[in-house]
């Protein structure tokens, strides 16, 4: 039936939408409808209040039958919003949906102009162009492509773990990739969680081990994604497995090798404890690490010591006592090297998290210069029972407890010189640390804030609780932290100079310990990750969602989703909610089993192709291949995104793009130019 209609004379129906007053306020819709009604091939022309409404769509369907329409043009909003709606209406009316064309007279016209007469003229010209073009439209078929039901989750902090668990619990296969030796991310380092003060490890570690043991989850720790090819439903991903010098299959997690190391006392800064503790070259990040497999740090292990010319020289001080201790399990393998593995997945969730602001970038706060200035993450470890001091809050001398503590909010955040955004979690975690420090040491605690932001369930109540506990809240952004005493009480202390803006006075407050509530920022390699997955970033460098309200976990690449703090600073409840949303989007995609592809793809007229290959390197989706037998190029429709680059580049004009054929485009241009 579609083919029949194609060969008939075009009978075009035109509709112009008022969009309430959005369009009608600036464009005389009745005049546009009248003008279009006089154009050749137009059988009927109407204006209507809301074309996207049910009655509006029914109007199209009825008119197709009543007037024998075989082409439809709607002048309304952006095709991004309602092209799908109107194509559906046209299809319901019995036409091929690609006999429809949409004109944007809202975003491109009424919203951006201030002269009603001019705007009306522009709407007429745009409509005339569409009428010219639609006459040449052809019937097209949307293609279906099968979806690989396996999902890749990148990053195994709380966001990645929750996404992976949700998808795996639905019975789908998940590959969970984490670049550190253990999963858990930042949350594993936290002591308690606000506002309920339940212990972070108690709620996280069961989820970690469940993820590690899940039959549908393949956990690749100490691994990184290095390459992503393909398209929604069919991605080919290359994963680098970094050598941990341990055979993961053979290691049983007994950790006998650790005390056996020739370094009798731990000597090297321990990443998990933010450098406050020490570890050996062979280590497990923390007791509940998942997987329970040790790792060897080649930078400090004597076995990997480099000679002067850079060659590896095994130090004779290394007695390989770890290998001895491992015994017949024989899990230690010093010969391991990087391995690359290729996997195939249908959907990808990027949950690569955040990094904390480097406090040395704010020199006036003295981090790195004064011993007793700490970052918040260091305090998390310091108050933690399994931390470097066993939960005793002592200062860097290892003995004295602080009698007074100043917590400085917004370090690196809300500052145009560093990170302009509010990091969202610092107010709450600062109050949590204030509570914990008071509980551990009974010190006087001062919070220095610009604004207290507690928008969350139970958060404002937590603020109230802190006020009742007698924690001081001083509204003012700290000017400087100094050890220069001006009064006897300031001797030997760190002095915080700040305006108490509510009192309207500048104050100097001496404290023993300063805690910097460092903000959240994109990971330092976020730009590389962005390119890897073909995503976009906002101005801050966090990954950009497709729509801030209606598509918060989707990206502009189909089949690639984001969850957690890689999208923007957020706390654990929001992260988990977003991780669940990402999992739901993945399940909706892979459960459907197929994706429909827009038929606006390009194809090559084989007879005319000269085999010059100029199109091949230009294709951003590597969709063009070369057939050596016929000496012609051909386009893989499944990979083509319809960008049109090859069409413009072909010297013999032998590449054609559906919906953008020369005749269609020229008629459209002619339509605009013919209008006067």
């Amino acid at each position, binding site marked *: 039936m579609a083919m029949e209609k194609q060969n008939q004379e075009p009978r075009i129906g035109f509709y112009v939408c008022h969009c309430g007053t959005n369009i009608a306020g600036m464009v005389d819709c009745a005049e546009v409808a009248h003008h279009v009604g006089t154009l050749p091939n137009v059988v009927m022309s109407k204006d209507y209040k809301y074309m996207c409404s049910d009655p509006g769509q029914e109007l199209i369907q009825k008119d197709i039958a009543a007037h024998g329409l075989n082409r439809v043009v709607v002048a309304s909003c952006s095709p991004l919003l309602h092209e799908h709606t109107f194509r559906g209406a046209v299809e319901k009316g019995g036409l091929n949906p690609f006999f429809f064309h949409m004109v944007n007279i809202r975003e491109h016209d009424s919203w951006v102009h201030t002269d009603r007469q001019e705007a009306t003229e522009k709407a007429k010209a745009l409509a005339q162009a569409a009428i010219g073009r639609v006459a040449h439209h052809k019937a097209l078929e949307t293609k279906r492509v099968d979806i690989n039901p396996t999902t890749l989750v990148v990053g195994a902090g709380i966001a990645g773990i929750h996404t992976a668990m949700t998808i795996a619990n639905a019975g789908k296969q998940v590959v969970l990739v984490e670049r550190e030796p253990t999963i858990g991310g930042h949350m594993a380092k936290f002591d308690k969680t606000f506002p309920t003060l339940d212990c972070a490890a108690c709620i996280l570690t069961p989820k970690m081990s469940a993820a590690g043991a899940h039959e549908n989850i393949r956990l690749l720790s100490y691994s990184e994604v290095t390459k992503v090819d393909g398209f929604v439903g069919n991605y080919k991903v290359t994963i680098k497995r970094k050598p941990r010098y341990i055979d993961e299959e053979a290691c049983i997690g007994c950790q006998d090798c650790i005390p056996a190391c020739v370094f009798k006392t731990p000597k090297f800064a321990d990443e998990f404890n933010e450098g406050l503790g020490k570890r050996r070259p062979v280590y497990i990040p923390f007791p509940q690490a998942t997987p329970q497999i040790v790792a060897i740090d080649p930078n400090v292990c004597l076995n990997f010591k480099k000679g002067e010319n850079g060659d590896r020289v095994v130090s004779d001080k290394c007695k390989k006592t770890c290998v001895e201790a491992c015994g017949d399990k024989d899990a230690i393998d010093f010969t391991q090297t990087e391995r690359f593995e290729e996997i195939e997945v249908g959907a990808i969730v990027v949950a690569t998290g955040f990094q904390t602001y480097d406090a040395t970038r704010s020199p*006036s706060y003295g981090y790195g210069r004064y011993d007793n200035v700490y970052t918040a993450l260091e305090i998390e470890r310091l108050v933690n029972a399994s931390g470097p001091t066993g939960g005793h809050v002592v200062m860097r001398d290892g003995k004295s407890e602080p009698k007074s503590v100043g917590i400085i909010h*917004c370090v690196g955040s*809300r*500052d*145009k*010189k560093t990170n302009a955004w509010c990091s969202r979690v610092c107010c709450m975690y600062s109050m949590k640390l204030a509570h914990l420090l008071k509980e551990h040491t009974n010190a006087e605690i001062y919070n220095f804030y*610009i*604004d207290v932001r507690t928008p969350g369930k139970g958060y404002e109540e937590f603020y109230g609780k802190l006020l009742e506990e007698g924690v001081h809240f001083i*509204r*003012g*952004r*700290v*000017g*400087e932290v100094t050890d220069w005493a001006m009064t006897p009480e300031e001797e030997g202390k760190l002095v915080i*100079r*700040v*305006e*108490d*803006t509510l009192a*309207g*006075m*500048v104050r100097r407050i001496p404290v023993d310990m300063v805690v910097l509530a460092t903000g959240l920022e994109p990971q330092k390699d976020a730009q590389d990750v962005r390119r890897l997955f073909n995503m976009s970033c906002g101005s801050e460098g966090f990954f950009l969602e497709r729509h801030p309200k209606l598509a918060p976990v989707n990206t502009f690449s189909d089949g690639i989703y984001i969850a957690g703090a890689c999208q923007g600073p957020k706390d654990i409840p929001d992260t988990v909610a977003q991780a669940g949303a990402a999992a739901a989007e993945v399940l909706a995609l892979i459960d459907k089993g197929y994706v429909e592809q827009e038929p606006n793809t390009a194809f090559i007229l084989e007879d005319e192709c000269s085999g010059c290959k100029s199109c091949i390197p230009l294709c951003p989706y590597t969709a063009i291949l070369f057939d050596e037998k016929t000496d012609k190029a051909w386009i893989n429709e499944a990979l083509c995104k319809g960008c049109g680059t090859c069409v413009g580049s072909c010297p013999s004009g032998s590449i054609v793009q559906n919906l953008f054929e020369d005749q269609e485009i020229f008629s459209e241009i002619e339509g605009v130019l013919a209008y006067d």
Partner: protein
Amino acid sequence: MEIKRTIKYQADRVRGFGREVMSVPGCEKLKDCIQCGTCSGVCPLSIYMDFTPRQVMALTREDFKNEVLASHTIWLCASCYACTVECPREIRITDIMYELKQRAIHEGVYPKRFPIPVLAQEFTTMVRQHGRVSEGLLVTKLYLKTNPIAALGMAKLGMGLMKTGRFSLKQENIKQRADLARIVATVDNESVKA
């Protein structure tokens, strides 16, 4: 105890003052102020100020012209630029202080014997008339106009320096003073027009 009205009525403001200041090039970003107090926190002179720099920003933005121009704060500002460097909203606080000082001088509401406005006036007068600043003369004038008694105390030191040729009361001049006068007059005309 003297009891004064401290409440501010809308009529106490000078409508448009804030907008006027914020339209001066360099002062626009005052609009972005979030009243965090960093400027006061870093200001070495905030020890002596009646209003903190942050309060001056708030008062300016809210049109409290009389209060701001009568404040000591603008005259205590030593233009060390610490506030401008540290401000998280990139407000050029020091430049706003200069703008306020200029306005106070134009309106004649500055503290008459305070060195900073006197220095500013003597400095510009000297440049306009002679095209050059003669520091010895400038410092002497400053002392005489602000604190003549202290000037007496410095007399002996001054004499000593004069003897060794390190201090002079001679006014230096440029050659083409007439040209300079024309340039300055043109600039003045333009700024009146603006």
